[in-house]
């Protein structure tokens, strides 16, 4: 029996899973949409992974990352729960030990990680504003009647991208509507959008940071060929997009699950596990905390949201 480790990255838009062995080979992987229901998405993910995983493997660790990491960590009884920045850095370093810059644009977050000799030296993440992330691209694709998957290749057709305000997505959107109404071809608008994502990212997240090669671009948006093209153009450097770039967080957290393994054996079978959450508003004081109670097999495993610590 060979040992293997599962990493699950539950983002706002997509849920990713990767199973690796002791030599960092990817034994099974899956990429599905979260669709606002992380618990259901993870059940699906586990089913897909179970079909892929050969019987000769035994699961010795589970790690969770992404914005729903705590919830799913409880559900899967993960042996490690870590934020996505650390997970992405660890995952990328596993395959690219020399990397100096990691650009990442996800569904709601965008971040930049600078490394030197395998140690993070600086990083930044978008603050309040989620402008220029994947969800903006997908809503604009919908507006233009395009599938978000073909968005990138569509942008490559353009020879003359239109200028779209890069400061704020609300402005970018009104710019886009205006450009469409005065008759610019669709591919030029799409290309302009891809370029505005790049400029927006470099102005908001990458500002003042020295971006040095090798540069790796990952997160869902890295699958968009148009955005990759304009990163190359603006930075004047080669941009590496790994074929598994969308899985890097999952791989990273799987590596960490291996490092922190406890000897416990896990199962991918989720059918016999009942997992519920109940939301309620506490009325004991004027804070009116929104409480979330989490039950695994009808047993209360945790509750969140209380400011006073009573729950």
């Amino acid at each position: 029996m060979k040992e293997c480790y599962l990493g699950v990255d539950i983002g706002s838009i997509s849920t990713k899973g990767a199973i690796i062995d002791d030599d960092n080979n990817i034994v099974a992987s899956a990429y599905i949409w979260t669709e606002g229901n992380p618990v259901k998405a993870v059940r699906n993910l586990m089913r897909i992974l179970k079909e892929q995983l050969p019987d000769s493997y035994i699961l010795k660790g589970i790690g969770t990352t992404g914005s729903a990491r705590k919830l799913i960590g409880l559900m899967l009884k993960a042996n490690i729960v870590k934020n996505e920045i650390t997970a992405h850095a660890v995952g990328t370093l596993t395959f690219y030990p020399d990397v100096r810059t990691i650009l990442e644009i996800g569904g709601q977050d965008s971040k930049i990680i600078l490394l030197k000799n395998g140690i993070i030296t600086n990083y930044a993440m978008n603050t309040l504003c989620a402008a220029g992330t994947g969800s903006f691209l997908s809503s604009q694709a919908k507006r233009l009647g395009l599938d978000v998957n073909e968005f990138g290749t569509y942008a490559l057709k353009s020879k003359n991208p239109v200028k779209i305000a890069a400061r704020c997505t609300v402005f970018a959107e009104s710019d886009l509507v205006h450009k469409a109404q005065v008759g610019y071809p669709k591919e030029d608008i799409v290309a302009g959008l891809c370029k505005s994502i790049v400029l927006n990212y470099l102005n908001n997240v990458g500002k003042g940071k020295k971006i040095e090669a090798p540069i790796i671009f990952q997160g869902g948006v890295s699958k968009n060929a148009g955005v990759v093209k304009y990163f190359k153009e603006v930075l004047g450097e080669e941009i590496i997009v790994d074929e598994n770039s969308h899985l890097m967080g999952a791989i990273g957290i799987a590596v960490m699950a291996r490092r922190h393994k406890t000897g416990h054996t896990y199962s991918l079978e989720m059918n016999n596990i009942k997992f519920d959450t109940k939301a309620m508003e506490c009325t004991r004081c004027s804070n009116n905390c929104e409480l979330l109670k989490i039950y695994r097999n009808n047993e209360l495993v945790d509750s969140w949201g209380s400011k006073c610590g009573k729950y």
Partner: protein
Amino acid sequence: MVKVGIPRGLFYYYYGNIWKHFFKFLKIPYIISPNTNKDIMNRGLKYSNDEMCLAFKTYLGHAAYLQDKCDYLLVPRIDNFKQDNQTCTNFLSAYDIIHNTFEVKVLNYNIDLEHGEALKKGLIKIGKELGFDKQKIHQAYRYAMKKNEEDKQREITINLNKLKSTKTKILLVSHPYNTYDDLIGKEIIKYLKQNDVEIIYSDKFDEKITNKLSLNLSKDLYFKYSRDNVGSIIYAKDKIDGVIFLSAFPCGPDSLVNELVMRKIKIPHINLVLDDTSSFTGTETRLESFIDVLRGLNHD
């Protein structure tokens, strides 16, 4: 006897201690609004417009809470601390906004050092308005200042001693009305403490030293409280592992000054901007990853 209401926000975190000692000495009853909670925040949102920062919105909530519980509200009008040491326009406008919004009478004192309006003058005016004689007020003023100085020195000593700690040390650069507010800074501080971080507070330094030190980073910083904060970074920079900038959306001075400082300093840092809609999940991700970066956990 009349009762004075002190809203727990903005100015309270700078002068509250002096006021308390002053009123205690003169035996004037006073009431301080409770820690910010959802109810106070919602009251504040009702009275505020969208240009005001989160801290100012909650301040209005505190004033609203107190309006029927006291005879006077204490709201200073702080203009400047001499040239090049201005305060933000919210601070300047607070008196007029509250005076015009609420029915309750407002005790006002001006701090406008450029035009000779010092803290002392303001307190004397208040004492007179409440019917005390000059000598007694002077005594109360001296007592309050002395007590406040003692309290402050104690806090500064505790803060500076933390710089010698062996734990991961993070300087929290933030205005005290954000740092110590229950709905703004409290959860962040709680999270950092749970993760065994030593927090050094940017407002607990000797401002006479930090205000001057800020000149090393920029000669034309305009706002007093920003200068004090920036100076604390210079003071502590070799003794800390990282800096967290915390500000309330949409703070004008912070968006300017923090941006400038972040481009100049060579210490690992993150910027947190909070609004009333923020859930703690996003903040937690940032804090957790920042602590990881500082401790180099990604490299085990």
